[in-house]
């Protein structure tokens, strides 16, 4: 295992060195853009030389961040009718809402720029189910064990495949050519996870619930937060290399973090929280997730539509390209200063409540009077950098290898990246192209700061070459069919769930928020999942409704 990792590391590091070191003698690259979260405007926040505000507005609730958390809070308000529904304004730093669930579009298809699926929600994820019901994707009673979903959004077969030993096998758990003893160990591992999926404590709370706030705090499970996933596997006698590869893949894929660093509680949570799935080993899980060409973008559009329909046409509830650069609290509420990049002016907002639905690491830079304890808790959160690339193909995907046909999620085992999803997978198409492939790479093998530096420093040519080379192992002449290759970088893509992330003190502090400023971002949970962002958005919205005596029914 270690040796293979080492060889792989040498391989890609070597190729990166060659690329940056000398003039590449390689075939020409497809055109494309190097973009990403607006780090320019983001870094501008670290300066303090903004001009004084020229306009002042008053609003009962200000929501900062139009990602899933912010939009979910606004959507929860919109489930109430006036006058129970408070007036609110949502500010977004980027020029489009969506956060990690943003998407792009070209002549061939829509495609994700980040998160690309939502597992079928558990019963306890009531807010997510209510949202899906409102969007018409979930039919019937949203509280039943197995609701009906719209077949167009359920992931079609083939769900996933793995390129291994020169062949594509169905499923991502390595099986092809894996010794029997390892297969037996895999089975034991998945049986253990299935046991935990059904486990409940004395108060009948699930051991691993999603949203995680519903999880049991019994020490037999919370103690798993004290060690890393890898150490837990070692402790339990799981040593099969194929299983280690797979578990590490899952941790990199879901948390952008190597399993040597991920909290075992978080690692197990991935396997044990999703009750929608069958027994993971051997069972078909083709219907286990909801997806669309634009990844989770349809959920963002859906939230946006539901909010717009509920608001008055002249309300203008969303403003994009807005950078909050100062935040203060006083006796009556909050004072928030906002820089508008387009008009080069500043705005002051007096808000009764602030819902902070942006990454928490920004707060200490711009909030005055943030308590030390809170600042310290926030400083313990570290973030994984990610790269997402979209490759546009004008023809079917070349597949010289044998084995399973193209799937929705396609993973190459001997790659440091996470593989790719196919945007047109949910379409009714005979040919595997034209299409758009969305390629994911969490730079989890370096410490976050170094990885972030590498992510931002590497030129377009360097990344494009690495990506094409990686995919060409399985797809031969892919390069000739790629007409466009766009690279999207997230310097701070998601909070990393390291051991201790589930600490009681930490959770209490973040859930309590800071007076009139409530925290709704998935950072409060410590991992970046749609369900968590949605939960905290809805939670703080209901807290505010309750504070004004307007909360009639609860989703949380």
């Amino acid at each position, binding site marked *: 295992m270690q040796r293979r990792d080492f060889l792989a590391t040498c391989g890609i590091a070597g190729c990166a060195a060659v690329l940056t070191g000398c003039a590449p003698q390689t075939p020409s690259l497809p055109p494309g853009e190097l973009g990403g979260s607006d780090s320019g405007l983001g870094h501008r926040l670290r300066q303090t030389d903004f001009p004084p505000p020229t306009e002042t507005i008053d609003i009962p609730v200000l929501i900062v961040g139009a990602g899933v958390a912010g939009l979910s809070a606004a959507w929860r308000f919109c489930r109430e009718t006036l006058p129970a529904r408070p007036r609110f304004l949502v500010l977004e730093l980027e020029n489009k809402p969506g956060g990690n669930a943003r998407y792009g579009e070209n002549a061939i298809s829509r495609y994700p720029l980040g998160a690309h699926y939502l597992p079928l929600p558990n019963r306890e994820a009531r807010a997510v189910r209510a949202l899906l019901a409102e969007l018409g994707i979930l039919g019937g009673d949203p509280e039943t064990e197995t609701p009906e979903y719209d077949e*167009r959004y359920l992931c079609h077969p083939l769900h996933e495949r793995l390129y291994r*030993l020169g*062949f594509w096998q169905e499923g991502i758990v390595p*099986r092809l050519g894996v010794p029997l003893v390892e297969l037996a160990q895999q089975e034991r591992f998945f049986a253990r996870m299935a046991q935990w999926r059904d486990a409940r404590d004395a108060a009948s709370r699930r051991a691993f619930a999603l949203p995680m706030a519903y999880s049991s705090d019994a020490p037999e499970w919370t103690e798993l937060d004290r060690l890393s996933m890898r150490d837990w596997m070692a402790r339990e006698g799981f040593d099969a290399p194929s299983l280690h590869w797979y578990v590490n893949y899952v941790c990199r894929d879901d948390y952008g973090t190597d399993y040597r660093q991920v909290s075992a509680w978080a690692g197990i949570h991935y396997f044990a929280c999703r009750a929608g799935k069958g027994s993971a080993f051997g069972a078909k899980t083709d*219907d286990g997730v909801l997806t669309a060409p634009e990844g989770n973008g349809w959920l963002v559009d859906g939230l946006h539509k539901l909010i717009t329909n509920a608001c008055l046409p002249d309300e203008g509830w969303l403003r994009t390209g807005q950078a909050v650069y100062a935040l203060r609290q006083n006796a009556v509420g909050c004072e928030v200063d906002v820089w508008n990049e387009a008009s080069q002016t500043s705005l002051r907002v007096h808000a009764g409540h602030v819902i902070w639905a942006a990454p928490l690491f920004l707060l200490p830079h711009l909030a005055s009077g943030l308590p030390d304890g809170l600042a310290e808790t926030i400083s313990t959160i570290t973030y994984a950098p990610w790269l997402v690339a979209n490759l546009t193909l004008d023809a079917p995907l070349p597949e010289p290898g044998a084995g399973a*046909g193209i799937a929705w999620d396609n993973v190459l085992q001997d790659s440091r990246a996470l593989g790719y999803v196919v945007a047109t997978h949910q379409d*009714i198409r*005979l*040919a595997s192209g034209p299409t758009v492939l969305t390629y994911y790479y969490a730079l989890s093998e370096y410490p976050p700061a170094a990885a972030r530096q590498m992510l931002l420093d590497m030129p377009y040519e360097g990344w494009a070459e690495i990506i094409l080379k990686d995919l060409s*192992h399985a797809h031969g002449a892919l390069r000739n069919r790629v007409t466009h290759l766009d690279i999207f970088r997230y310097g701070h893509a998601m909070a990393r769930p390291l051991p201790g992330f589930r600490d009681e003190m930490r959770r209490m502090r973040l859930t309590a928020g800071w007076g009139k400023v409530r925290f709704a971002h998935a950072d409060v949970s410590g991992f970046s999942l749609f369900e968590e962002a949605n939960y905290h958005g809805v939670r703080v919205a209901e807290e505010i409704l309750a504070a004004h005596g307007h909360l009639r029914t609860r989703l949380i």
Partner: protein
Amino acid sequence: MQHALLVSVFVIASCGLAYELVAAALASYLLGDSITQFSTVIGAYLFAMGLGSWLSRHIDGDLVRRFVQIELAVGVLGGFAPMGLFLAFASQTGPFRVLLYFAVLVVGVLVGLEIPLVMRILKREVRFKDLVSRVLAVDYLGALAVSLLFPILLAPYLGMMRTGLLFGVLNAGVALYALRLFGHRRLTGLYGMAIVCIGLLLGGFAVAGKVSDIAESWLYADTIIHAESSPYQRIVVTRWRDDVRLFLNQNLQFSSQDEYRYHEALVHPGLAALPHARKILVLGGGDGLAVREILRYPQVESITLVDLDPAMTRLFSSAPLLKRLNGDALNDARVTIINDDAARWLEKHVGGFDFVVADFPDPSNFALGKLYSTGFYRLLKRHLAPGGRVVVQSTSPYYARRAFWIIVTTLEAAGLKTAPYHALVPSFGEWGYVLAGEDVPEMPISYPEGLRFLTIENTPDLFRFPADMSRVPAEPNRLNDQGLVRTFEEEWKKAVH
């Protein structure tokens, strides 16, 4: 000397693993079910190596001479094995599995002899402790090298035949090298043999491309008159006397001897009952044979043919022999050819058709299965004019009975009324179709002139299903589970074996 032999160990270890991987890969390529093939081939190979090691105690005399002979034998047998197996498979001579495991056993035994012999040769100069550690270390290193090279370079770029031959040359090269190293006079005869072996293998390398063409021609019983690979499929047209056949990805699409039965049954029971049908849509069917039947109706004003593959429609609108078959239908003024994915075109297109022919390949994979799903039929329904009908070719209700009734159930789940029927097409067997529309399709009362198969009197028989093809309960084929594809595969697997 010692290092030279260790280099040889590295090479022969690589060769040993290469033969094993090639055999396993070839078996899963030709027979499918890669997990079974990989595991049984690798198991048999390892067992044979063990057998070889055990047998090595019986080899005495001039060990160097024996080693060279074994190297040459491994080189030639291992090198040519993939080519031989491929030819055997294509020509269908003898039971392929028996040949496969025989080849695996023979090569495995020979490979198993190599390392024990090398160790005995080296034993004279090296202490046993060092000998074992070095030889085995280098052995595993060679295996590692090939296991990495095989998926990355060899399989995709050289292919199985050439990979086998390449390692054959390496084995023979080791033999030659050993001869030079030991330089015995007594061994001069072997020199010549080694050169001959290398020559043979290189010759094989040169003709590998041709051999694979020949093997392909054996897969088709008749003379290939046209073969091309489009980005979507392999198109092959064969001819024997006056029987012309079309194969797509090796699956028979029609035989000119009886295709009139298939296409008359596809088009007329539906279209002859629609005297006012003006606008017709054909999905798939780039061979133009269904269009030929539709052109028999003078009231038809336009036929839109949507076929994904431009190579197909080009071939069938330009090759004289094939134009004779479809009556030059694709060049008729009423026909518009569109090369696009059927569903994508339907999503973009606005407007209804009086009659739609869905003539897609059988649902043998998930991409094709989607064209037989509730999602697709709902899309199709939106393109039916009032009173319009659709006919769906629906695989064999005899060989794939459940699959056939799944298609019927799926059309019904999409909100259509159905009239399933069947016809005997000798080169396919008993074949199935489903007529569907907003209301129950009626029978025709007359057919156009010149049909060779259908008569009004016999038509009711087509809609009656004998006991062994009668309706079975089924779940509709939804986009997200595609039970049809799995059922279809299971049923045809049983039918073929």
